[in-house]
């Protein structure tokens, strides 16, 4: 199966690259450590053999689509990555006609770190219920059987919600204290593309320079809020965090609330308006009176 997907992707990539349909293929190649994967940018048909796909291909390549916006390109995208591409199309960041999506029926990716490949699926893949790409021009791989989950995908959020206020404050303080404000979470996120980020603005100086808990907490709340109704749960932020802050717990809280209140899941259909960009005049959200 692994060989199968790789071959399919290579064949398709060679075809569209040599026909001149696209000028760039964004895919995966084997990293220098020999076991994990890294993003690959292929411009010549003879380099297509570098492309791979297996369960170590964890990156969300939609991020690189923004950097190459305007070019005709092809992206190798797992199911969750196609949601990210959909959000970018919805927000007019990339042009659908110029983007060739090589969708992959994704069996889930395993936990990886430099030089090491685990055999356990990543948490986001354990709770994944949509393995087929949402937007594609070509699909590689066999359809993955959708099995009922058997537990609540937001169980981790619910557990934290059930704690007392003091425990929650202590929990988050413990994590925010470790943050070094490297902004890797923001940089890795395919949905964060502002040219000037609000946390780096100097005038007005919304988020101060000190690397202290209040500033770090404001940064994290704003980062999470800017992803409310947009986060597709690819978990690149948490994976790229050098100090291991559970950022997914913040993103999933918003995903859960958006799903409960507005019945919306981002990235499934670019034609449906995002929840915070629309409204119902007579809705009751338990606020305003």
């Amino acid at each position, binding site marked *: 199966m692994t060989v199968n997907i790789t071959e399919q992707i290579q064949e398709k990539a060679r075809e569209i690259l040599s026909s001149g349909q696209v000028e760039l293929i964004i895919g995966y190649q084997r990293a220098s450590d020999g076991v994990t994967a890294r993003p690959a940018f292929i411009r010549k048909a003879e380099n297509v053999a570098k492309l791979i796909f297996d369960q170590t291909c964890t990156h969300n390549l939609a991020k690189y689509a923004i950097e190459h916006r305007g070019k005709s390109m092809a992206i190798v995208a797992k199911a969750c990555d196609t949601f990210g591409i959909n959000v970018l199309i919805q927000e007019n960041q990339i042009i659908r006609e110029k983007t060739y999506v090589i969708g992959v029926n994704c069996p889930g990716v395993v936990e990886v770190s430099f030089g090491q490949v685990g055999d356990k699926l990543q948490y986001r893949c354990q709770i994944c219920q949509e393995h087929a790409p949402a937007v594609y021009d070509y699909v590689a791989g066999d359809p993955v059987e959708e099995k009922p989950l058997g537990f609540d995908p937001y169980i981790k*959020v619910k557990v*934290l*919600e059930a704690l007392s*206020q*003091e425990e*929650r*404050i202590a929990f*988050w*303080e413990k994590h*925010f204290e470790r943050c070094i404000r490297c902004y890797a979470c923001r940089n890795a996120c395919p949905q964060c593309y502002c040219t000037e980020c*609000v946390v780096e603005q100097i005038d007005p100086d*919304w988020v101060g320079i*000190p690397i*202290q*808990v*209040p*500033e770090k*907490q*404001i940064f994290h*709340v*704003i980062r*999470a*809020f800017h992803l*409310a*109704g947009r986060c597709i749960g690819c978990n690149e932020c948490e994976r790229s965090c050098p100090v291991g802050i559970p950022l997914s717990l*913040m993103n999933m*809280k*918003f995903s859960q*609330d*958006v799903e409960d*209140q*507005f019945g919306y899941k981002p990235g499934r259909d670019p034609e449906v308006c995002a*929840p*915070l*960009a629309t*409204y*119902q*005049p*007579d*809705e009751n*959200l*338990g*606020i*305003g*009176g």
Partner: protein
Amino acid sequence: MSLDYEPRIIGFLCNWCAFAGADLAGTTRTGYPSNIRIIRVPCSGRVDPLLILKAYQQGADAVLIAGCHPGDCHYVQGNYFARRRFALLRQFLDYLGIEKERLRLEWVSASEGRKFARLVKEMTEEVSRLGPRKDTVRRPVKVATE
């Protein structure tokens, strides 16, 4: 919590309804607690979550956002967007440990001076009961130098 604890409430009032309502409370001499510090904004839809967090960081005990009633927005739909935004933010801040009572979104029309006074009174009592904030979005207030 000391007995002389006085909560500080920051009020973001929309220019067209709530601010005029607060004005009316003043001109009709309807008394309300002086714990609220009012900031006039063009619309409740203008209030960015960042403003609220900044208020908390600078030591506010609670934040009130007041705008026009649904359907009355000067900009037609600003308050509807605000409603969705703060419904989410309120739940999220509660998740991080800032109680839901510390963030309120209310509709106050230009003729509702009494409602405004009642709201401020209610909120001051509620926040006094809760006491000072226990979470970590706070740092010592520094006086800005121009």
